[in-house]
């Protein structure tokens, strides 16, 4: 059961990472990246690292997303291809 949870979460992480990389809309990419942080936080917690999980939830999912959003607000939202 434990390994199944880890496998599902890691596959989800890979899937989210791919969608972040493929997103042309940078706002969508930031929101997906915040989701990546939250899922990674669950993985840390499940692997017995609650200290890292707390920091991941606050910094990985919270603070960095806001800083990315501020950057988008100051530049442009769409990626030039």
């Amino acid at each position, binding site marked *: 059961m434990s390994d199944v949870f880890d496998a599902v979460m890691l596959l989800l992480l890979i899937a989210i990472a791919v969608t972040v990389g493929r997103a042309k809309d940078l706002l969508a990419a930031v929101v997906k990246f915040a989701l990546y942080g939250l899922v990674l936080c669950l993985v840390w917690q499940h692997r017995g690292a609650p200290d890292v999980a*707390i*920091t991941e939830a606050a910094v990985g999912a919270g603070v960095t997303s806001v800083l990315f959003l501020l*950057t988008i607000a100051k530049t442009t*939202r769409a990626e030039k291809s």
Partner: protein
Amino acid sequence: MRWLGIALVFVAAATMIAGVADLPVHGTPDAPIHRHVGARYLEHGVAETGMRNMVTAVLLVYRGFDTFLEVVVIFTALVAVLALPRGAGKAGPARVVSPSGSTAAATSDADAVGPQQADVPVSPVVFFVVRLLAPFIAIFALASLYRGHITPGGGFQSAAIFGALFIALALVFGRERAARLVPVPARVWLQALGPVLFALVAFVGWCLTGAFLGYPADAAAHAVREAMVVTLEVGIAVGGAVILAQLFMAMEG
């Protein structure tokens, strides 16, 4: 070029998978990581440091010097950001992202700093939820700081939660009102609190034990050890939180 990139990704992934496959199974007792100093820390850590959270014990006592430099690195990052010229990102036409998904051209007036708040009204749901949760988040951060040597948590976690709380409040109540939480004269000292308190504790430890960042080892000095650790935790938490808040304000301003 595109195929070269894809090939590079596959090579890197194959290298990493090969590396991970070589790791011992998670939790194996005779893995190298458990045969080195880790076993000694786990065996004597609680008795030597008086801390039941081994992560904090290793961070602040056994590897205190590393943590000192880590705090200095965070402080240096803030100094680098503050050294950037203000308004450097305003070269192009500034665009504001509104919740409805449309992008609107911001006013080109350089004095209109932070049009994000003015143009985009905060949703009542977000306003209510942040106001409702803020005290609980603050209590969680304080508990994480106060009980960091017993339960998961500690100075860095507390700093991250406090910093995130400040950013949430600043997004809802506006930058000016949030900035008043930490007045400018206090900010100058508080953002350096981590390195300053670390240096202070290291000096105290030097005077007491003759070793930089040394902790008195005898059982009678338990209170002194505890005071040193709590001072470090407060420095990391307050300094880190102010640094996160400053990073936010520097980027937004």
